């Protein structure tokens, strides 16, 4: 799969030719560095490992320093492997840029870590409706989950029962976002719709196989 690593800059909205206002996410995509090329005969499959974002030299472990030295690049903060990368012929240490992979109008998937929401109740976390009444005998039950199972049989709560708990901070892939525009001179990618994560968090943009 062809793709690139980027950083979410933020969201905005723009008007298209038809006069519709479309919500867009601005992503600072690349330039990435090829830090490893995996080959059929040595690794069993073909893939490119790309690096993006600068890491501090002192926070990089010795083994990783060697890894980056081999590719002839400074330490990178984020490394991602793209299997079957066939957009452009690349070898170790090469630069991968947005415009080489994406064109305007392409469909892409965006992978990111969603914003952490902390410990959340069942209404926000799973979309339960709550009780829906404030009166009619209700007391402190407005956002309660209701029954979580039967009684003496099975005498336990089934695994996977949707309950309150930690929400967000998960790896999520959003599919079929459209590339509105590529800005090669600023390494920016403009996609329609929302992308998971905080502003400034790393996102992986994968190109859909057409």
């Amino acid at each position, binding site marked *: 799969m062809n793709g690139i690593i980027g950083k979410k800059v933020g969201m*905005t909205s*723009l*008007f298209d030719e038809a*006069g519709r206002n479309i919500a867009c996410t601005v992503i600072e995509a690349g330039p990435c560095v090829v830090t490893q090329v995996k080959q059929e005969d040595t690794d069993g499959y073909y893939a490119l490992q790309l690096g993006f974002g600068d890491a501090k030299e002192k926070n990089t472990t010795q083994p990783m320093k060697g890894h980056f030295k081999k590719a002839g690049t400074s330490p990178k903060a984020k490394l991602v492997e793209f299997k079957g990368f066939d957009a452009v012929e690349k070898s170790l240490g090469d630069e991968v840029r947005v415009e080489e992979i994406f064109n305007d109008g392409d469909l892409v998937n965006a992978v990111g870590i969603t914003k952490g929401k902390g410990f959340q109740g069942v209404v926000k976390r799973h979309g339960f409706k709550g009780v829906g009444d404030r009166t009619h005998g209700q007391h402190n039950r407005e956002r309660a989950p209701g029954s979580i199972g039967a009684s003496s049989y099975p005498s336990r709560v089934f695994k996977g029962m949707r309950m309150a708990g930690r929400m967000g901070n998960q790896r999520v892939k959003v599919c079929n976002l459209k590339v509105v525009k590529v800005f090669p001179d600023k390494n920016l990618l403009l996609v329609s719709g929302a992308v998971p994560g905080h502003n400034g968090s790393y996102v992986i943009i994968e190109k859909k196989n057409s």
Partner: protein
Amino acid sequence: MDAINYVHEQLSLKPEFPAFRAGDNVAVSYKIVEGNKVRIQVFRGNVIQIKGTGATKTFTVRKISGGVGVERIFPFTSPNITEIQVLKRGKVRRARLFYLRDAIGQAARIKERKFIRPTKK
């Protein structure tokens, strides 16, 4: 933020409308698409709010239509707005005129600004 501003510079329209502010009476001409016909409608009312910056700047126009208050929010960069005419300059003491929603009759009127200072560039 710089990146977002850059995107707007590249892709957003630069609106060229007369300057107006909250309290002014304006007529906004905007395109309406009905099926495959495009016609222009005019929305005339008082500006009660100007909000946002850059490409996401909007203004809210309020009018009384058939005894019912109607408000419409227009983005400054919308390609559907063809013209904005400033009909009256209003004399108001705040930037957001939400009190007009509750005001009835005489209280809902905006005094006209008779002396208009030249706008600084």
